[in-house]
């Protein structure tokens, strides 16, 4: 079987494009249409959101190892802004990432000429049909993903993960040089049903990590589903990650590409790459929204767990006590968080989940959180509990 697998030709990995709207610009109508069209044609779109600085865009493109960056600018200042993005890519040794964009009529022909001279690969003018935009992006920005020894820092990590995604992880793991005297990373898997507020909770945990540690880094692996039909995906977790947009946070979005385990098939390799880099004190791995039987991190059975601890997050709308008892991870998780505790149903939910955890008899503690609330004390407690685990404590 192994021989057959190794000879099998890998299907080409989907093109990965980072899209964003520049700083001080909230016009996201065009870009959301483009995002949908690109995903519909099988591309993976990592959407960063509107009002994004050049440095945030470049950081994200590096960490996501994207083939290109697409910028949609409708508020003027595009000459300066596009140049800043291109220059930052060059200065950081990542000029292989192309920059393209559009701005309806606000980007004139003369502007586009000047932008091209200054390094922007392509401007799409007002009235360009969507199909043309998609096919030209596919034609012009597809690259062969190869190991590149010149890559440094986050880009080297990111490329190693990209290679893992295309099924070539083990051969190129040497790309990432382990840091000397590296601290051991604590890896926490975070699972829960869709809409429980996992992404917000993760970002709030990242904020607390960054505030509590003046040095040290955190990594976040955000798994999101690929569309089963088109193979494309809109990976939008970065949009709401407002605090994890920091040079001390490494954020990588992984599309599941057909894997139905709740994680990308490359997630184990990606975790391994991040751990071996020795750069991260804390690694948070977010699964896709999971169901009752899901076990994305191998908490049950004979597999070696992928992570050191599992945090299970749910919101008060789980559908009543009977449903609770069917959720496997509620007994497998090390931490359980009931999020959205500002909801009127939270009081009952809290009692029901507590009863369930008591029945488990594993000493699991229930954390009542409202991640959407600034400085939520419940999130503080959860963060402290995770930290005490890093120091060798118990959940």
């Amino acid at each position, binding site marked *: 079987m192994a021989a057959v697998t190794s000879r099998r030709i890998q299907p080409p990995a989907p093109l990965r494009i980072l899209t964003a709207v520049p700083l001080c610009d909230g016009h*996201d109508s065009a870009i959301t249409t483009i995002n949908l069209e690109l995903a519909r044609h099988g591309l993976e779109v990592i959407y960063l959101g509107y009002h994004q600085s050049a440095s945030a865009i470049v950081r994200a493109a590096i960490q996501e190892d994207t083939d290109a960056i697409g910028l949609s600018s409708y508020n003027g200042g595009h000459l300066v802004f596009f140049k800043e993005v291109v220059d930052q890519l060059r200065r950081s040794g990542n000029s292989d990432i192309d920059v393209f964009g559009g701005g309806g009529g*606000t980007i*004139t022909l003369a502007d586009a000429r000047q932008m091209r001279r200054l390094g922007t690969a392509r401007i799409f003018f007002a009235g360009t049909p969507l199909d043309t935009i998609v096919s030209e992006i596919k034609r012009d920005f597809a690259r062969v993903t190869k190991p590149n020894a010149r890559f440094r820092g986050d880009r080297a990590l990111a490329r190693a993960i990209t290679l893992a995604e295309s099924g070539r992880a083990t051969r190129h793991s040497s790309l990432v040089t382990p840091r000397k005297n590296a601290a051991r990373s604590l890896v926490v898997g975070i699972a829960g049903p869709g809409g429980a507020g996992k992404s917000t909770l993760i970002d709030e945990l990242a904020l607390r990590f960054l505030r509590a540690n003046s040095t040290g880094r955190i990594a976040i692996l955000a798994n999101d589903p690929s569309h089963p039909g088109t193979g494309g995906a809109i990976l939008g977790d970065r949009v709401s990650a407002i605090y994890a947009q920091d040079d001390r946070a490494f954020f990588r979005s992984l599309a599941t590409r057909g894997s139905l385990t709740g994680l990308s098939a490359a997630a184990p390799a990606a975790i391994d790459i991040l751990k071996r880099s020795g750069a991260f004190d804390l690694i948070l791995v977010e699964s896709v929204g999971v169901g009752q039987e899901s076990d994305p991190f191998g908490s049950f059975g004979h597999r070696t767990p992928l992570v050191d601890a599992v945090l299970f997050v749910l919101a008060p709308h789980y559908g009543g006590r009977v449903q609770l008892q069917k959720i496997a991870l509620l007994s497998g998780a090390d931490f359980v968080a009931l999020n959205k505790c500002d909801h009127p149903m939270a009081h009952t939910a809290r009692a029901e989940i507590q009863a369930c955890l008591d029945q488990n008899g594993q000493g699991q503690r229930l954390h009542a959180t409202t991640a959407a609330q*600034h400085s939520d004390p419940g999130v503080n407690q959860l963060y402290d509990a995770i930290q005490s685990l890093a120091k060798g404590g118990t959940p």
Partner: protein
Amino acid sequence: MSSLGKIADSVDAYNRHVAAEVARARTDAAFAAELRVRWAALRASVDWTTSPTGTPLPRLALPDTDEPGAIAAYLLGQGLPGEFPYANAAYREMYLDRETAAAPATAAVNEEPMRLFAGLGLAEDTNARFRYLSRHQKSLRLSTAFDGPTLYGLDSDHEGVLGKIGEGGVAIDTVEDMTRLFAGFDLTRPDASVSMTMNAPAPVILAMFVASAKRRFGPACVPQLRGTIQADMLKEVQAQNEVIFPVDASLRFLCDMIEWCVPHMPRWYPVSISGYHIAEAGATPVQQAAFTLSNGFTYAELLRARGADVNQFGPRLSFFFDCGLDVEYLVLGRVCRRLWAIGMRDVFGAGPKAQILKLHTQTSGRSLVAAEFQNNLTRTAVELLLAYLNATNSCHSNSADEPFTTPTERYALLASHAQSIILEESGLFKHTMNLLGGAPGLLALERAVEQGILDVFREMDTLGGVLAAMEQRYQRSKIQEAGHAYERQINAGTRPIIGLNKYVSAEAHPNVPLARTPPAKQRLQVERLRAFKRKHAKKAPDALQRLENVTRTGGNVFAELVNTVEVCSLGQITASLTNVVGKFRPMV
């Protein structure tokens, strides 16, 4: 049930009431007689005028009927202009020519609706544009567009914003910029009115406006200041994306400002509940109306929950709609006035002044295209006509060059003249109120649009109301979905856009003059800001500390901001407020 469900039910109940009264008029002889007497008196009260070509015309057109059922249907179903439920107009005479009026007009109603939005470069550049635009205006109308950094509460020296300074609007960092912006204009004139398209930092910007006016005209001027600040945070979260603070904090800052303005600035509209950006982001006309009205009712609920009196704050709420070329726009203002009046009266217990939806309209920016852009003049003219047929209280017309640039002088002037041509040159709106109200096509559209809006109300009600729906990103999804449908219609050619996907000619990239801010000016703004910060370096920290304390302890943030802006910049204040309340987490 959230109040949206109650409002939808109250509209149904009102419609049943109208139907019952119509039936009674036809069966109850005493009621029929009463209606006939009222109708005769009404007809007798109508003044007459003469067109320039000598045709005699009534200043108010009434349905040509004596049938009691039809009279009841008109009076209760639509209402006379200026009477409940206000379908025809908020006021009796609107744009009618005063010179030919029998009775002398009062100053308050004798103002032109034109209100041209302007903002570019630094404060003095916008000031010059204001002077240019106001040359021919009877009353003083200054409507301000701000640049990106100001809209996001950032200072001009913030990292990465240099290229954005003065682009798409004016750069305002400090109270001194605000003084430069309106220099030479007497803001205390009874017919002066200033509007500011400003949202998340609206409390800071309005505080700068107040502080600057006090410096120029003395502390007693505050109650005289008249105008509107947009400050509609719900539509920002749903569509326009200029949000800085978390939703709860944003709404609290807004309500603090409204509560301060109601007693202190009785002529000021502290919020302009806006559908414009909802429509520009993709919403259909029905969605625009439904989301905007529901946002308005939500503000009413929030203020009421804080103990404010609906009859105090209600008259200070104003609205702002987009007007495009889709047929629903023929009646959108009419339907919205009616629904607002019924909801405010029957669910919120509002008196007449708080029932009236006062409407600003802007022609659709999205409908303007780069291809053969001079066609945009025609598009805007048609949209203006629709806006006036809806009896909008004020109106902005877009410039034809807007697909490319902040309007240049030439196209801004053409846009302004388009309004004058419709209102002053043409006789359409000069002589007779109720030109088309009650026409079969309008009634059919009104019914369909009203039903569409109530359906959206009921759907949002099942989601728990506006705020709960927003958390589930219901409005955003619906707006985005409609936006995609619009783009796909254009792509497929099923939505004809002349010059773009139909009757296309060769002209690919027109050479249009651009209004852009030169880098030297952008650097000048940064220097001015730094000088201000140096000047106030000693006082600023204490002022910011006081602001943070008020924010933390639940005091009225706006009342404190009026002091803070004396020594602090917009960016310093934004950072300080963020310290206390955190940042907004965007939704996809």
